[in-house]
């Protein structure tokens, strides 16, 4: 069934259950992926998936919800029935409604939908990529984690008030994680991920080069002493950290008491004035951009931190009503609606130009360069602001660098943001956003020496 057919069927079926108000979001996808092991196809996968989340409002305006992958007529009837039952338990203390922006025009974004390359082409491409990476260095023995995938999907939203939105897209991704080992030394592993709208858009050579360079460069490693060090975060690692603490921008998390921010935090100086952060889901470089969120609200660019000051929170319909503002296009779809950031853009404030020292390309002092943070799910306490994370990185001194054997970095985000001592000018594109290199006065490092 397409958007109109589903809407029509739900309209008719809802009437028989005396349901007058409903909305739904659905997605349909076809995914293909391949993995290889030294040239041999390891697992080839294809999947056809459909999932629909349906909300209904009862006579007391309480919401009930059901999610299903059964989009047959019987499946949709059962979903309506179950959602109606669930509405008896709707949250009376926090009512949910349609987004007031669900019928606003959405920004026309070019629909990037490529043609499928097909499993054979994916396999052939990955075989070549794996082989090239293996041949980059004799120490690279295997590429234990690799994959090439393409996905074609359609997302729709509609409600009983007449809102109807949909978009289609394609996306492809390659990841190559190499494992290198030299005699009497510990194995080292690193890799690279590249995404594009389709196979033809992925820069596979740069993925190979990056995976090889990262893995090989870490072969010569050394343990470091535990202590406090000056830190330079790579664009990837800084974005990883900010995303892990994105509950500080999240109105849902603030209402739930699990954020380091509170309702009155807007306007607080939370970071060095050099720091600007935007959430820009529609950024032209964001391959995963979506023109509307789970509630049908148009996606928009939002300033989160401006010259170090907390500027905005991200909202769903219900949190926006509590905060007496408008939804921002960051909602999921549920009876308790989740809220999340889209695509972060970090930049150096234009208004401040005096902090021009410290550049990772020419600084000769002693510092630690954090290339990649790991184990985020385990080492971040977002509700407390603290973190303790293993990382891949480098110890720099006098312009020379050596890979760090194994270490963790620990700190408190609130202190870290205020302890930023420089934000480099040049921004880098990553798979999760855009950021320059960020320098921090000091953080605790636990080493193995």
């Amino acid at each position, binding site marked *: 069934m397409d958007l109109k057919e589903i809407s029509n069927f739900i309209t008719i079926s809802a009437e028989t259950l005396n349901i007058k108000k409903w909305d739904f979001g659905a997605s349909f996808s076809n995914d293909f992926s391949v993995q290889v092991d030294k040239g041999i196809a390891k697992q080839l996968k294809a999947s056809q998936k459909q999932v629909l989340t349906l909300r209904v409002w009862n006579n007391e305006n309480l919401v009930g919800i059901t999610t299903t992958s059964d989009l047959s007529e019987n499946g949709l009837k059962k979903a309506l029935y179950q959602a109606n*039952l669930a509405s008896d338990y709707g949250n009376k203390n926090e009512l949910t409604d349609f987004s007031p922006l669900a019928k606003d025009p959405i920004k026309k974004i070019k629909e990037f939908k490529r043609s499928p390359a097909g499993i054979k082409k994916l396999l052939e491409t990955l075989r070549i990529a794996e082989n090239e990476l293996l041949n980059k260095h004799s120490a690279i023995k295997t590429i234990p984690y690799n994959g090439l995938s393409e996905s074609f999907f359609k997302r729709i939203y509609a409600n009983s008030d007449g809102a109807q939105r949909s978009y289609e897209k394609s996306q492809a991704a390659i990841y190559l994680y190499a494992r290198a080992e030299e005699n009497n030394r510990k194995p080292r592993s690193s890799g690279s991920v590249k995404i594009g709208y389709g196979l033809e858009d992925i820069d596979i050579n740069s993925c190979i080069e990056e995976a090889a360079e990262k893995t090989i460069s870490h072969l010569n490693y050394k343990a470091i002493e535990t202590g406090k060090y000056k830190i330079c975060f790579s664009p990837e690692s800084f974005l990883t950290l900010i995303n892990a603490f994105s509950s500080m921008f999240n109105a849902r998390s603030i209402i739930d008491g699990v954020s380091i921010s509170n309702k009155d935090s807007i306007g607080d100086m939370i970071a060095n004035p050099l720091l600007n952060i935007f959430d820009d889901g529609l950024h032209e470089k964001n391959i995963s951009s979506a023109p509307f969120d789970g509630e049908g609200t148009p996606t928009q660019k939002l300033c989160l931190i401006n010259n170090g000051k907390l500027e905005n929170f991200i909202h769903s319909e219900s949190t926006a009503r509590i905060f007496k503002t408008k939804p921002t296009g960051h909602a999921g779809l549920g009876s308790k609606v989740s809220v999340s950031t889209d695509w972060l853009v970090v930049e150096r404030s234009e208004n401040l130009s005096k902090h021009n020292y410290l550049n990772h390309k020419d600084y000769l002092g002693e510092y630690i360069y954090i290339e990649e943070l790991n184990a985020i799910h385990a080492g971040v306490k977002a509700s407390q602001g*603290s973190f303790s994370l293993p990382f891949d990185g480098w110890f720099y001194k006098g312009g020379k660098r050596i890979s760090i054997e194994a270490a*963790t970095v620990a700190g408190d985000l609130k202190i870290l943001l205020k302890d930023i001592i420089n934000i480099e000018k040049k921004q880098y594109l990553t798979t999760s956003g855009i950021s320059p290199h960020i320098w921090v006065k000091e953080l605790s490092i636990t080493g193995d020496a």
Partner: protein
Amino acid sequence: MVLTSYINKEIDFNEENKELLEEIISLGLSLGADFVEIFLENTDNISVLVEEDFITNVSPSFGKGAGIRIFKDKRDGFVSTNDLSKKGLINSITQAIEMLDINSTTIKRFEGLEDIRNYSIDKCSWLDAIPTVNEIGEKLLSSTKFLKKEEKVNVRKGSYSRNWQKVIIASSDGTFAKDIRLHQTVGLNVIALDKQYRSSGSRRFGSSDSPDEFKNWNHEAAANEVLDSSMNMLYADYVDACQKPVVLANKFGGVIFHEACGHLLETTQIERGTTPFANKLNKKIAHEAVTAVDEGISSGSFGSLSVDDEGMEPEKSILIKDGILKKFISDRAGEMRTGHKRTGSGRRQNYSFAAASRMRNTFIAKGNYSKDELISSISDGLYCKSMGGGSVGATGQFNFAVEEGYLIKNGKLTKPVKGATLIGEATEVMPKISMCGNDLELAPGFCGSISGSVNVTVGQPHIKVDSITIGGR
């Protein structure tokens, strides 16, 4: 070209579907596959969330799907779909054949499916026997009310989740099985707050195949445990980074063995070349105090199964005996590619994942010491009473957060400390587990890996590690 009947049947989960499944399997073999497996799944789930003194979310979900896997030589192709019509299943198996580019004239013989092994016979009434949303809500509300007794507790949450899954597994070696699985979990979470001090506490409880388990759950004892943990940690200082001996508590302390060593004993890791234990069978990899087990047969345990997702009954596997590596955890592909016999460990999150070798109930066996004997043997160390999450990198390095920790001084527990992280490598740490307590207990959890998130238990008695790197401030 194989003729199939033109009647477009659809999978009916109340029936065996033998004829239709045999037709699809025959088609796969006739097109050149060496082996065909069909996994059918029907689910009915619900989650309930209580925050403070109100039910804030009730989310039912249901669905059905099929995962079809074919092997040709050692390669495999996997297709998943929500379309359970005959046409949909034919399309899927044809797609799997095309993906593997099979052009074989040799056709494997198919004797038909054996008589169904129906593990679901006594389980058909489970959906009627599980607690109602009203009963769940009442008990969760009672739990969060109980958490209110400590005024510094700022956030109180109780959550319940029920996963009901009916599966049918059929494959070209004749395997034909049907089962119903039921998993229920309940979690309590608090955040305590006092000026600049914050702490959190959480516990999860879970059961498998026991409809009444939630009704019997002692929510007051659970709430007390969570409260004690968060209040003890509220004013704790950060731990200093160091290398020290540690005592890891029983139950969820076993997560370290699960992550740091258990995963390295799965045949998927041998296939990838990412386990240092690949060539260590019958060799010493741990201290002689260590015996470790993975099994799927303990009644009611969260990782137990009547039959795995490849149609094999689970076995009890002694992984390590007195420090010697005795066995790997293996699935069908693992047996084919590494030679290690299947252990009834082929598991997947749902129909959209191909099964892989995964742990079930995994634990270090009990030893002879009391917890006090372990602690009193340390003059300067750390007691890790409650572990948080962790991870293991591609080279075997692990990293685990300590949720609730206490310094050990002169054989006694002293002040609580926070921010500790245990860092190490399985090959280095396993030989340093020098003492095992006599108080083995298991704890439920979810394990995410190549075939998605599956229910497991982790466990151990209290254990002593002679030295480990502790990350801190």
